[in-house]
C-alpha cells in the first residue's frame, strides 16, 4: 500500500499541469456547491434570528410575505399604509400589550430610515430574545425635543465613521431625487451590532418623519413653500399614516383571535401576520429556487468529476508502459487498480479541500458586501451537518468516478501483462 501511495504521488507530481487544472475544476465546483448550501442556510438563520419577540405584524391589506419582507427585513416597499387611527385602535385592544409603529420610505446614503417610537429599542428582540444594545449614546428623546435626533445602526456608523453628534441628511424615497437638506438630524445614539437589518437602519421618531415632510406633498416639495426646522414644531406632527406596526400581546394564546380581529377590522382593510408562520411560508416559496440552485451546483460537481475521469483516462494511454513496468516488478492488476483509484480519489479530496478554502476565502472577501447589499451574514467556520453530507456525497461520487479509469487500467494490466505496448 505504501508503495502504491508513493508511486501514485510521484506519478501525479509528474503530471502536475493537467492535474492542477483538474483539481481546480473540482475545487470550483465544490466551492459552488458549498457556497450555495451555506448561502441558503445562513440566509435562513439570519432571517429567523431577526424575528423574535413580536407576536403580530400589521400592515395595509396585501400579501403576507410582502408585509414581512418590507416591515422586518427592509426588502421591497409597501404598496399601502395603514392609518394612525387603526394603529391606535389596535393598541386599545384589551389583549394587546404594546404596539410599535414603523414608518418607512426615506433613506440615508442607501440605508433605510425607520420612523418609530422610542419604545422600539425596548421591544425589538433578535436571536434568543436579545434586546438592542447601545454602543454609544441614547435613544432619541420624545417630541418635541427629539424631533431631529436619530439613532443609527452599527454598520452605518462603522462604514461612514459617524460618531454621536454627527449631522446627517435624509433623502426622500430611495435617494437620488431629493434631499431633506433643510432639516438635518443629529446622531444621538449608535447601536451595537445585532446581525439584523437594524444594523443598517437609521432610526428616527415618527414626528421627525412628519416634520421633514411638512412642506412636501405627493412626494415632492411644495413649490414656493419652505418651512424651516425651527418653525416646524408649531405644526401638528402626529402621523396620519404609518407603514406597519409591530404588536406584542399580553398572552400569546390570544394571537389567532387578535389576528382575526385585525384582519376583519371594519374601518380599514388590514393584514396581520405571525412572523414565524409567514417566514415558513416564505421558505416554502423560496425552497423551489433553492433546490434548483443546489441541483445546478450538483451538476457542476458531476462535470468536475467527469473532467477528472477524462484526464485520468487520457493519461492512461501514455501510462500503459508504466503499468507494464510495474507488472514486471511484481505489481498485480489489483495494485494497478488501487494505484489509479488512489490517484483519482486523492485528486478529488485535494479538490474538495481547495474548494472549501476557496469558498471561505470568497466569504471572507465578499461577506461585507453581501451583508450591506442583501442583508445576508455568511459565517466562516467548520462545515455544517448538511455541508458534511454534501462533501460526503461528493467524495462518494469521486470514488465511483475513480472506478472508471481504474477499471480500465486493470483491464490493461491483465491484457498487456509485462508486454510494453504503445
Amino acid at each position: 500500500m505504501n508503495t502504491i501511495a508513493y508511486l501514485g504521488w510521484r506519478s501525479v507530481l509528474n503530471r502536475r499541469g493537467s492535474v492542477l487544472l483538474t483539481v481546480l475544476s473540482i475545487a470550483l465546483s465544490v466551492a459552488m456547491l458549498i457556497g450555495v448550501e451555506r448561502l441558503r442556510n445562513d440566509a435562513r438563520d439570519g432571517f429567523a434570528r431577526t424575528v423574535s419577540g413580536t407576536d403580530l405584524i400589521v400592515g395595509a391589506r396585501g400579501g403576507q410575505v410582502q408585509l414581512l419582507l418590507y416591515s422586518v427585513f427592509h426588502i421591497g416597499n409597501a404598496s399601502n399604509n395603514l392609518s394612525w387611527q387603526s394603529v391606535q385602535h389596535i393598541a386599545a385592544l384589551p389583549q394587546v400589550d404594546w404596539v410599535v409603529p414603523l414608518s418607512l420610505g426615506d433613506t440615508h446614503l442607501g440605508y433605510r430610515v425607520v420612523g418609530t417610537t422610542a419604545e422600539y429599542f425596548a421591544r425589538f428582540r433578535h436571536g434568543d430574545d436579545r434586546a438592542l444594545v447601545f454602543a454609544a449614546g441614547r435613544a432619541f428623546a420624545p417630541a418635541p425635543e427629539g424631533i431631529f435626533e436619530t439613532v443609527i445602526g452599527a454598520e452605518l456608523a462603522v462604514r461612514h465613521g459617524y460618531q454621536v453628534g454627527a449631522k446627517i441628511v435624509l433623502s426622500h424615497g430611495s435617494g437620488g431625487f431629493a434631499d431633506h437638506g433643510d432639516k438635518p438630524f443629529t446622531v444621538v445614539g449608535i447601536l451595537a451590532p445585532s446581525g439584523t437589518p437594524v444594523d443598517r437602519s437609521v432610526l428616527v421618531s415618527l414626528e421627525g418623519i412628519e416634520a421633514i415632510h411638512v412642506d412636501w406633498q405627493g412626494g415632492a416639495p411644495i413649490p414656493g413653500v419652505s418651512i424651516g426646522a425651527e418653525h416646524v414644531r408649531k405644526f401638528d406632527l402626529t402621523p396620519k399614516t404609518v407603514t406597519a406596526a409591530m404588536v406584542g400581546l399580553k398572552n400569546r394564546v390570544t394571537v389567532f383571535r387578535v389576528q382575526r380581529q385585525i384582519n376583519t377590522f371594519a374601518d380599514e382593510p388590514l393584514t396581520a401576520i405571525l412572523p414565524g408562520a409567514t417566514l415558513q411560508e416564505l421558505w416554502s416559496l423560496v425552497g423551489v429556487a433553492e433546490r434548483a440552485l443546489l441541483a445546478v451546483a450538483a451538476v457542476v460537481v458531476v462535470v468536475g468529476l467527469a473532467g477528472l475521469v477524462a484526464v485520468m483516462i487520457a493519461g492512461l494511454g501514455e501510462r500503459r508502459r508504466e503499468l507494464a513496468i510495474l507488472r514486471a516488478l511484481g505489481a498485480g492488476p489489483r495494485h494497478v487498480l488501487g494505484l489509479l483509484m488512489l490517484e483519482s480519489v486523492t485528486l478529488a479530496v485535494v479538490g474538495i479541500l481547495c474548494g472549501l478554502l476557496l469558498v471561505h476565502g470568497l466569504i471572507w472577501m465578499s461577506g461585507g458586501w453581501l451583508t450591506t447589499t442583501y442583508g445576508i451574514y455568511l459565517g466562516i467556520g467548520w462545515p455544517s451537518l448538511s455541508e458534511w453530507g454534501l462533501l460526503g456525497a461528493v467524495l462518494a461520487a469521486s470514488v465511483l468516478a475513480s472506478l472508471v479509469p481504474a477499471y480500465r487500467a486493470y483491464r490493461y494490466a491483465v491484457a498487456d501483462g509485462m508486454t510494453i505496448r504503445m
Partner: protein
Amino acid sequence: MAETLNIERFELAEGERVFLRGASGSGKSTLLSLIGGVLQPSAGRISVGGQALDVLGAAARDCFRADHIGFVFQLFNLLPWLSARDNILLACRFSPARRARLSQMGVLPQAEAERLAARLGLTPALLERPAAALSVGQQQRVAAARALIGAPGLIVADEPTSALDAELQARFVDLLMDECAAAGAALLFVSHDARLAEHFDRVVELADINQATVREVA
C-alpha cells in the same frame, strides 16, 4: 485459442547463462510472460527456482515474480518520472523477500543500489537524475541494477541491447554476465541477434524447441 508455444522441455541450471535465440513473432514474449507467471500455460508445468507456478494464485505469482525474477526489457524499462536511484529501489519496494535478503547480507537497499550502480558504471550524480534524462545505455544499466538488486535467482533479459550500438552491446552483455555471476543468478538472455551468443554457456534456438504449428503474430 491458437497454439503459440509447445515446448516439451526447457530448463536452466542454477547460475547458468543461456542465450535463447528467436526471431520476433516466435513466441518469445509469451514464453517470458509464462516464466514471469503473468500468463498460465493451458497445459504443462512451469517451475522457477523449484517453485511450481501453476499451484500459485495470480497474486502469489505476482509476489513470486517480484521476489525471484529480475526483468530487463528492450526499451522503456524505467518510470521516466522517478530518479535512477528510485527506479532501482522500486524492485525492493515491491518485494519483501529482496529486502529480507539484503538485510541478511547486512546491507541497506540504498547502499546496495549505489554499489550495483557503481559496478555497472553509473556515477552517483547520474543516480539522482530522472530516468528520462539518461541516455539509452545508461537506462539499460539502471534497469540491470534494478533486476539484480536483492539477489533474485533468475534474471530474464528480453532484447536488452537492441537499442544500443555494437560496442555498447558487447559491454552491456559482459556487465550483465559479470553481475549475474557475482550474485549467483541464472541468466536467460533472449535475443534475435546471434552475434551476442558467443558470451554464453549455452545457446538455444526457440524454433528448435517449439513444436507449435501456429506462430504468434506480434
